[in-house]
Each structure stands twice: as structure tokens, then as C-alpha cells.
């Protein structure tokens, strides 16, 4: 009976540790609310407009810097997307460039995003000029 108790407790403890993802090794990045931002952006878009994303992601970047930890991959890119959605092209480009600087793997893709955003702005301004 006692053995059974210890065994069950051990199994439950192991399950709990696995569930909480007990990583004993050093983590590479500071994540903050990044996962929550992505999750809400999709599942509760009303609660996560671009302004709120910018607010949260900027805060996490600051937190990472304060803690002297590395900003997680994707954080600056998501910030760039949020700025783009608000029509703030310079801030969007700066954020995309920062992601590419930290993670050169993303540079070709992000350069493409920046180029398309510029082309679109150009097209739109031409369109509005034509209308005048």
C-alpha cells in the first residue's frame, strides 16, 4: 500500500515536471508575452489590436534588455507587422531590420516584406494622385 502511494506520487510528480517543461539547462531567449500576443492576435483579435501588440512587444523588448537576455526570434518581426498594420512604415521597417540584424536567417524574407510594403505605398500614392 505504501509502495503504491510513493509510486503514484512519483508518477504524478514526473508528469507535473514534464508538463511544466522543467528545462534545467539555460534558456536562450527572453519570451515574455510573445506567445500570448500571437495566440490572442488570432483567437481574440478584438483584444489584440496593433496598438496593444506594439505596447506589449515593446515592453518585452525592454524587459529583455533590462535582464540582459536575448530578445526571442519573431518578437521584432511581429512588432514590424503591427506597425505596418497601423500604417507606420518607417517603424515597421526599423523593426523588420532589427529582426534581420539579430537573425540573419530571416533577412531575405523580411527584405521582401519591406519591398512589397514600399511598392504598395507607392502604388497607393500614385492612385490617390491620379484621383486628384
Amino acid at each position, binding site marked *: *500500500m505504501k509502495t*503504491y*502511494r510513493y509510486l*503514484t*506520487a512519483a508518477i*504524478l510528480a514526473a*508528469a*507535473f515536471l*514534464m*508538463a511544466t*517543461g522543467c*528545462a534545467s539547462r539555460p*534558456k*536562450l*531567449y527572453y*519570451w515574455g508575452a*510573445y*506567445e*500570448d500576443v*500571437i*495566440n490572442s*492576435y*488570432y*483567437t481574440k483579435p478584438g483584444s489584440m489590436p496593433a496598438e496593444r501588440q506594439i505596447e506589449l512587444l515593446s515592453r518585452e523588448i525592454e524587459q529583455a534588455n533590462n535582464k540582459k537576455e536575448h530578445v*526571442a*526570434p*519573431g518578437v521584432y*518581426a*511581429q512588432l*514590424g*507587422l503591427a506597425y505596418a498594420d497601423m500604417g507606420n512604415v518607417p517603424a515597421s521597417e526599423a523593426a523588420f531590420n532589427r*529582426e534581420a540584424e539579430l*537573425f540573419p*536567417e*530571416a533577412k*531575405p*524574407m*523580411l527584405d*521582401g*516584406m519591406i519591398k*512589397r510594403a514600399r511598392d504598395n505605398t507607392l502604388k497607393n500614392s500614385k492612385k490617390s494622385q491620379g484621383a486628384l
Partner: protein
Amino acid sequence: MQLPRLTLGFCVLVAMVAGAAPAYSAEPVILPRSILILPPTNRSVEVNAPYIFLSTITRPLAEKGYYVFPVAVIDRFMRENGLQISAEMHAIPLAKLREHIHPDAVLYVDILDWGQKYQILTSKAVVSANLKLVDAHTGNVIWENRAYASESPNNSGNNGLAGMLIQAVADQVIGSLSDKTYELSRVANNQAVDRLPDGPIRLEVQTAKR
């Protein structure tokens, strides 16, 4: 026999079943440095499943030492290019993905089951997905695994039938479906990715001791 009471008044028993053993290809593979995760295809009825999955897959892969392309930016990139359905995105030839995104590997995810199962005495949440990591240059499968987790509330073992019924009703009323699967998805993905070998970025950090 009575279950031992844990100091934790509320204990969620998370059952994790590792699916098929991870399949490594016979030849030694060069580990990818960057992984492109395409929005998952979805066989479940939960429309948010692909996105809940996406929100919980970057962290474990990045902490393993791989660069993960920003999932929401990639989703937007695909949509801007006229692809609205994940099945269409999965059909893009690797050469095309390499041309525009330059990934070393592509992760194809197929969601098999997702959400809350209502049973008579309790409700049970489940997340289940197939993960397939493909070399972006050769098309070879580098790694394959199942992400799975399920959760049902533990009634501390000594509730009568009435107690269990109340518990079941409470679970269904209080338990927000997407919130539960969000947490479960995290558990399942951590567990599934744990079997991947350490990626280049983790190995570099270990060598450099940054």
C-alpha cells in the same frame, strides 16, 4: 484504494503519450539552422486549432537552437501572395519557398484532433498533431513526430457520483475550451520537440559560452 492527496489541492493529471518514436533518416543529416513553419492543415472542428498550435511551437524549437521564422508574418506573407488555405500553402514547391523565404527546413503540421470532448461524467480536452520536418533542399524527411496531450480534471478520488456530476458541469461551464487547448498545446509541443537533437544556435552558444 484511495489516491494519495497531494499538497496541491487542485491537481490536473496531464497524460502525455509520445506518439510514434521519432524517425531519423538512415543517413546522417546536417541539422537545419532555420525552420519555416507553415500554417497547419486542420482535420479537427476547432477553427482556431492551427493558430493555437502556431502560438506554442516557436518557443520550444527556438530554445532547441533553431531559428524559427515569425509564424504570423509567414501567415501574412502567404495570404498577401494569394494563398488563403493551409493546404495550398503546403503544396508550394520547396524551390519556391527557398526562393522567397530561404529556409533550411520546412515543418509541415497536420492537426488530427483538437478540443473538448464532452462525456457523461466529465469533459476531456485533447490536442493531437503530426509534425514533419523536411529538408528544404532535398525534400528528405529529417524528423517526424506526434504532438499529443490530453487533460481531464482529477476529482481527488473521493467524490460520489453527485460530486462528479457537479464537477463535470462546472468543467463545461468554467473551462474555456481554447484556453485549455492553449496550455495543452504548449505541453504537447514541448514534449514532441524535446526529441529533436540540439540545433546549431544552441550548439554555438554552448561552445562560445556567450
